[in-house]
């Protein structure tokens, strides 16, 4: 009798413990804070940007308190799996590789990736053009994946944040870099620091690495959260709030097709 009770008790505890975290309560959102204009940190420490606005809007619609958790990019997915937060809203591209570990909502925007180099660089954006050149990318991004695949002859230099890539590109330590074209424009080329630089070639064509756009990431077992988030994205898109947020930062509609 005693044994049965203890087994029941343990089973009950286990059941409680393995419950999902979507039953109300605050929604912990993983954000980066180093990817303007999608997310960045002001001098006083507040987080701002398109991703941040999306996060706050989504929480409002789901009627849950938003807790933004800053996380280094290359630890984003392990942190989600380790339950540091319940979803990632940090311009993370939906790719098959990532889908092996986590799940995604529908996309919330889609912009292509492009190379950036000095104006009149003297080489083109092909595999042969970049052979032997120093190519900078952010670690653990789809761009690292594409760079390794499309430009195997280039000398790949990895950085923790995209900001560091821009820093070294303007210092002249890199010949080129590969990243999201919209962030490249808004976060570098349109600024004073990027005045001597420009896109090199067209958008790269690599669906396998690049994926089909950026989505919110959730753990595989949180399918109810995923569907709820996908629905809110559609709602935000439908009633015009998307356009309002979009136009604050970008001149074009970044939803893509």
């Amino acid at each position, binding site marked *: 009798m005693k044994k049965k009770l203890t087994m029941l008790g343990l089973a009950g505890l286990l059941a409680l*413990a393995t419950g999902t975290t979507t039953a109300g309560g605050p929604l912990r959102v993983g954000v980066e804070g180093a990817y303007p204009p999608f997310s960045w940190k002001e001098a006083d420490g507040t987080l701002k940007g398109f991703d941040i606005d999306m996060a706050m809007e989504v929480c409002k619609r789901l009627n849950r308190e938003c807790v933004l958790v800053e996380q*280094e990019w290359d*630890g984003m997915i392990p942190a989600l799996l380790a339950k540091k937060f319940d979803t990632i809203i940090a311009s993370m591209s939906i790719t098959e590789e990532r889908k092996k570990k986590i799940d995604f909502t529908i996309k919330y925007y889609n912009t292509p990736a492009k190379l950036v180099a000095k104006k009149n660089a003297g080489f083109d954006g092909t595999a042969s053009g970049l052979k032997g050149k120093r190519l900078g990318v952010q670690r653990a991004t789809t761009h690292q994946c594409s760079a390794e695949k499309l430009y195997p002859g280039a000398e790949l230099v990895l950085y923790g944040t995209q900001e560091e890539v821009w820093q070294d590109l303007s210092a002249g330590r890199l010949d080129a870099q590969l990243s999201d074209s919209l962030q490249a424009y808004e976060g570098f080329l349109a600024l004073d620091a990027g005045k001597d630089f420009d896109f090199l070639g067209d958008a790269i064509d690599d669906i396998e690495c690049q994926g089909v756009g950026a989505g919110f990431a959730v753990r595989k077992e949180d399918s109810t959260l995923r569907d709820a988030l996908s629905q809110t994205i559609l709602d935000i898109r439908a009633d015009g709030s998307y356009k309002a947020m979009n136009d604050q930062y970008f001149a074009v509609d970044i939803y893509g097709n």
Partner: protein
Amino acid sequence: MDSVWEYRGLLLEGTVVTVQLALASLALSVLLGLIGASAKLATNPASRGVANAYTTLVRGVPDLVLMMLLFYGGQQIVNDLGSATGLWDYVEINQFIAGVWSIGFVFGAYMTETFRGAILAIPRGQIEAGISCGMMPLLIFRRITWPQMVRHALPSFTNNWLVLIKATALVSVIGLHDLVWNASTAGRSVREPFTFMFAVLIIYLILTACSDVGLRWLDRRYNVGVDRA
């Protein structure tokens, strides 16, 4: 230089985090050091073996590697443990905790050597005299062992503390918003990394200089009545 002044709030916050981290790690390392030293001096070969394995492991692995293992990997293990035993749903291992545990663990090994050497330096005859006077073990520790242990351990302890303060800079690599992290982001946003890194160096020099003064005072206090060569 005015950019540093503009960001002084952020730099001050970072310094506070760094100092908190250093003190917390120091506390943990002293605790582990005392346990380790007594284990190494124990008669039981098993405890000596464990203590030796501990110091060997720490000597073989850089602190940053342990830190990353603890921060990224440790969270996963803690979660798996939690769901397997059903005892907890989620216990957070944030950067601060990962930093304190890894730095505390690493410097615990160095403190073990420090305290072991200090205890060995106390003449055995004094302990024997205490026992023959009928002193209880706790009294012996309080009046004979401890004051002399502190005196002998101080130089090595000071050295460990100074190295520890500098090691705290590594926690910025796993993203703790300490002095180095705050200064790096500030430097990057105004595109003046040199100015900010230089400011960080000055702050660290101030911290080490203050510690030096403080520990030298302690040294003088515990060395009252001792003839120095």
